[in-house]
């Protein structure tokens, strides 16, 4: 296990470096955006004087690298600063919304991951049958419709026509867990439809690519049932790519759900980030992006570690 620990440590260092680079990138990207925060806040009502006054209020008259280093010094100590617009602490602004995002992501993941993998195994077993084809077409259609469009269609059937679920997922902290699940069902279902196909197809492909291997052939010739061949013989060797694609999709559930949030009016972090970008509220943009980047890096690391743990051969590369 020493190798794995070393790998994790090395990857964490790389991860920290990646975060640093991301933060520099984002800072200067926000700097490069046309217009600045003062103009964005004042909107159509901006005049030269008011913009100048606001810039001074927000401390934007300092040069960009100085502001970046100032921010970085705070961030290293866990202080991500205050929102330039409202003056609230960034952690206070982002915290509750990030929890909402995590809730929705786990909700969708808990349904989607087992569903996709089971379905993937099933279609691998029944490959080239009608069931395989239908599952293929349905999941492909689901991912090839734009997300917001899928959302609209679900709203049509589940909210407008049958009123089984609420069309807007306005959730609050005072609600019971069951109520939360009920109210955020439609956005979760949309996300499930979006991510299932990718995971299912990868499971299927990973298993099928192993079926031609001699050891599978051997098992089959021994008279092992097809179901057992797949679950006991093929699946253990197929975990690596499957875990990889699951991690990728989990990251997507957390970082890529802006459109779903907009469609269902879900108070998550994506909407906050888009608003902050349009207002050039740098500390918020920065903190959100770093959260996303960290999520991505950690999930990736988890996937690689998972792949290694499920496949001893990867632990000792040639």
């Amino acid at each position: 296990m020493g190798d794995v620990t070393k790998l994790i440590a090395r990857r964490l260092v790389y991860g920290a470096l990646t975060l640093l680079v991301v933060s520099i990138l984002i800072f200067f990207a926000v700097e490069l955006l046309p217009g600045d925060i003062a103009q964005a806040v004042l909107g159509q009502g901006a005049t030269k004087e008011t913009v100048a006054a606001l810039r001074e209020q927000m401390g934007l008259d300092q040069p960009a690298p100085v502001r970046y280093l100032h921010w970085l010094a705070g961030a290293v100590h866990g202080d991500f600063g205050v929102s330039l617009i409202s003056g609230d602490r960034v952690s206070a602004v982002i915290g509750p919304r990030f929890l909402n995002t995590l809730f929705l992501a786990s909700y969708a993941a808990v349904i989607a991951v087992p569903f996709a993998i089971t379905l993937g195994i099933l279609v691998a077993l029944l490959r080239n049958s009608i069931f395989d084809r239908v599952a293929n077409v349905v999941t492909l259609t689901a991912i090839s419709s734009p997300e917001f469009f899928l959302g609209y269609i679900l709203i049509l059937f589940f909210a407008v026509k049958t009123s089984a679920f609420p069309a807007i997922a306005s959730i609050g902290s005072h609600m019971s867990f069951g109520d939360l699940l009920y109210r955020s069902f439609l956005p979760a279902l949309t996300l499930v439809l979006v991510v299932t196909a990718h995971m299912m197809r990868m499971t299927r492909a990973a298993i099928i690519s192993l079926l031609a291997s001699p050891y599978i052939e051997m098992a089959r010739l021994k008279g092992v049932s097809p179901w057992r061949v797949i679950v006991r013989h093929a699946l253990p060797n197929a975990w690596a790519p499957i875990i990889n694609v699951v991690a990728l999709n989990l990251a997507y559930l957390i970082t890529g759900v802006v459109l779903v949030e907009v469609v269902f009016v879900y108070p998550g972090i994506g909407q906050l980030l888009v608003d902050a970008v349009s207002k050039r509220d740098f500390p918020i943009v920065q903190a959100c992006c770093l959260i996303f980047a960290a999520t991505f890096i950690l999930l990736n690391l988890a996937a690689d570690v998972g792949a290694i743990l499920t496949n001893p051969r990867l632990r000792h590369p040639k």
Partner: protein
Amino acid sequence: MTNTRYAGPIDRIAAAARTGRISRRDFMHYSMATGLTASAATGLWTGAARAQPKSGGTFRWGIHDGNTSDTHDPATYVTRQMIFLAHQYRSYLTMINPDNSLGPDLATDWEATPDAAQWTFEIDSDASFHSGRPVTARDVVASLNHHRGDKSASAAKPLLASVTDITADGDHTVVVTLDGGLADLPWLMTDYHLAICPANEDGSIDWQSGDGSGPYKIDSGEFGVRWSLSRFDGWHGEGAYFDAVEMLILNDPNARQTALVTGDVDCVSLIDLKTKALLERNPNIIVDNIPSGAAITMPMFCDADPFTDVKVRQAMKLAMDRDEIIEKIAFGAATKGNDFHLAPVQPYWPDDIPQYDYDPDRAKALLKEAGAEGISVNLSTTDSIFSGAVDMCVLYAEQAKKAGIKVNVVREPSDGYYSDVWLKKPFCLVSWGARPTPDVMFTLAYARGAAWNESHWDNARFNELLLQAKSELDQDKRAELYREMCLLMHDDGGTIIPFFNNFVFARRSNVVHPDQVAASWSCDGARAASRWWFE
């Protein structure tokens, strides 16, 4: 100029109205121009036989256009979320009545010196903040000063540019001194930035706490998500029939529409015009279509080729088929524009200016005279101006083709449109909120050297008339001056005004509103919660 002095003429006008000798519009025109309390006149006009309002219920209200980064600072109000919220929990000195006349809010009475250069406002002595503290002249002075001075970053700064001093005279009197006559000052006080907040000891205001003196007080809320308010029993005004108000920020048009259809909200502030006809078929839903003074403009730089020639400008105006644009882009929910920035619902609107209609042949002829045949111009636009903004430009480009004008539609990023495109590109598309009086609008965007003179128009006669009208207290003379200004804009101006967009909002059929609703904002001047009730 106290409002009581106008009681005489108003009574006469009202009498004329009752006997049918005067049209409703003329009536509005005169009563609005006077700037007085018109609730009595409204009563006369709308008649006594009106359903009695009933108290009770929670009004769930879907609001479009809200941002998570909004704040309670009235100086930076920009989204509908804040404008609508401010009209519930804060008060203003004056307000636009349901019949579009000017009425009292915190100020019960106002009068001007004869040159209109100094105004005195009397503050309602019954008014108090939600915290229990009475509203005093000191709060008003501090709130108005929040938008003045070098340090202020308020978007309302230009509005109060001509104010030289604001002082409190006792607890309930505020005196505003200006550097010249300004007959419209009481109208300006309805501007959504000029909300009255509690003053701090040092003369600044406490906008952070969310305390106000409006009909509803904030119980809880989150910017860009939702606001829960409950009735404030100590409110100085009349109305506020709902027990509580629940405002939901629904930026996505489909979300708003579905929430209304499924009954998750009782009213939405804007609907997607594409679905207007379909929504109207729903028996549980009533769609309100209210003409407003909010305009879509297309300014052409009068000092940039090819727009330097007035004939080219006129050709551009004639090359537009406004009827088709209103039918296809606004789905009928708009009032045809005539290239002067004053809508029929606004005071002083002149009804005798010839309408520009689609005439590609005349446009061609004008271009030929100007020696500018086959010109090609770039028209900048973006989606966020209004729904269908880009489509409208594309449609105009198709129409202008017939007049031999090549319009290239350039879609700019929505982000930063007003800082990088507007006032910078020679021909673009702009959306303007309604301003209460023509003086405000003309001074902002058409006067020589105005910061927002979006068409770089400089007409000597117009500028002269504008100054003259500012301090003119005689209503007939003012109307005549504004008519001439409008004619100048129509003939010589560099701005195409395709249409004035209506406010199209919708409510469940159990929500009742009076016969008339204000046209200053969507949903009865953003005051639906304090003026409407459940059946």
